[in-house]
């Protein structure tokens, strides 16, 4: 109850800012933010989508997200912090999604601190649903590494202008030790200890398109923590100390007047996934469709090899105001071969229909 109340106060405060865009505290410091809240319902009792847990109970806080960003700019120097109450966080325990210092020398920006992982097209604004047409980025792809979105480390962004029309950003990055706790089900948590990670991202931007390519490699330890998994077993854990994930992603987004096409793929040593989407803008309305798929590979942890899940989505976005939008969606999820697909664990019933009404805004 206290959390709901806190949430309500926070949202009301944020809405009162909505007439403004960014709040300029001084010439060099600005405060901005984003938020989303939804009403969701599924017809399957097994929870769907990691960190969101949509089930057959009507849910008012499965997607609730609020973020505040504080930026300081001074010539070539930049400092930025972003505090986010992610869908999985309690109101009183938001997460520092980034906090970094940046310095620009010519066309290279160096960054150090807590940074966002640049894997896919929308990875770096994953929590800002106002910035993309769907209510949530496609689960198949964006949760392919358990929804981890940030890392501690350094990066360099090299911006290269090609002729007058294209820009290429090359971002190599290195991450150091980090811990992530993921609440999979009420009985299962996963503790991820990342020993080291590195990667490189290429983003080619033209007037009406973006191409994204990433290579990512991480060494990590994984502990599965079971609570009350069986009668008389209050707690036990399974430790998998030395794992490696190697991921390649390729994606593109094209805009032809009012038509927006997007598709992304990722291949890693545990699973592959992809999605494709089409959206068409008609004044303030953007109807869209999307299809996504997951495939598992045989590993020492799982013998299954093949398609594990898919989803089809039809929805519409409506821009209520320039900074407030609404989404109405129907998404059909399937799981295959007794695998979990987009569910958080293997479901008893293999299919689910999810209905979502979401409001998003930025200030």
């Amino acid at each position, binding site marked *: 109850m206290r959390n709901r109340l806190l949430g309500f106060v926070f949202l009301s405060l944020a809405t009162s800012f909505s007439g403004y*865009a960014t709040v300029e505290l001084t010439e060099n410091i600005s405060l901005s933010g984003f938020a989303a809240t939804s009403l969701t319902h599924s017809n399957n009792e097994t929870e769907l989508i990691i960190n969101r847990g949509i089930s057959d109970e009507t849910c008012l806080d499965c997607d609730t997200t609020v973020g505040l960003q504080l930026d300081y700019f001074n010539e070539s120097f930049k400092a930025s912090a*972003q505090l986010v109450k992610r869908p999985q966080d309690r109101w009183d325990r938001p997460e520092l999604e980034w906090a970094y210092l940046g310095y620009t020398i010519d066309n290279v920006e160096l960054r150090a601190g807590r940074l966002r992982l640049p894997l896919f097209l*929308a990875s*770096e604004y994953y929590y800002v649903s106002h910035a993309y047409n769907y209510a949530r980025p496609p689960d198949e792809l964006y949760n392919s590494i358990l929804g981890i979105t940030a890392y501690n480390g350094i990066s360099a962004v090299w911006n290269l202008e090609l002729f007058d029309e294209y*820009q290429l950003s090359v971002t190599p990055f290195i991450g150091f030790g980090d811990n992530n706790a993921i609440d999979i089900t009420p009985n299962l948590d996963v503790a991820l200890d990342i020993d080291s990670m590195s990667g490189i991202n290429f983003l080619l931007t033209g007037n009406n398109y973006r191409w994204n390519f990433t290579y990512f490699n991480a060494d990590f330890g994984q502990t599965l923590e079971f609570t009350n998994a069986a009668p008389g077993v209050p707690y036990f854990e399974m430790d998998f100390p030395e794992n490696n994930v190697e991921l390649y992603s390729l994606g593109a987004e094209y805009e032809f*007047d009012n038509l927006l096409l997007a598709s992304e793929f990722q291949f890693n040593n545990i699973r592959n996934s992809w999605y494709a989407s089409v959206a068409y803008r008609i004044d303030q309305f953007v109807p869209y469709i999307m299809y996504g798929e997951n495939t598992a590979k045989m590993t020492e942890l799982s013998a299954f090899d093949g398609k594990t899940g898919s989803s089809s989505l039809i929805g519409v976005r409506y821009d209520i105001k320039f900074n407030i939008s609404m989404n109405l969606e129907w998404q059909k999820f399937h799981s295959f071969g007794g695998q979990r697909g987009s569910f958080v664990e293997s479901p008893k019933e293999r299919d689910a229909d999810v209905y979502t009404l979401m409001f998003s805004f*930025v200030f």
Partner: protein
Amino acid sequence: MHPKLCFLKQRTEILHILSNVIVRFFSFILILLSINFASYAADDYAVFTSNPDFKSLSKNKVRMIFKGKVKRLQGKQIELSDWSENNPLRNDFYQILLGKDIAQMNAYWASLSFSGKARPPKVIREDTLQALISWVSAKHSRIGYAKLESLPDNVYVLYIVKKEKQ
């Protein structure tokens, strides 16, 4: 009067009337043309700066600048300004330059700003040309846009955004 003189006088008068008609006709055409020119100019926007060193820009470059893709010009960092959300100039400018309305631009800048890729244009809260020009003039790195015809002579126009004829 001598008949020859009378003829000469008549000829001068006719010439005078003719020249008057011609002058009036051309004046009329000129007025028409100027009205025509004025109506095109009223729809044009100028992207401007107070920096005499910046060279004029191509349409693609201006599009990339206002989409936050280009953050430096001739090796120097730039800062953008914008009109308030309620000012029709803002919607009109982005419609002509990028074919996008203010809501699309807002969503677009949200993706850049909340991923740390670019700083959104500074909104001039006073929403007057004077306030905009004094903000742009305070630093050589600053760039703004306004109706071309409203701009004073002491700013440098980098590009003229013209409305395509329907």
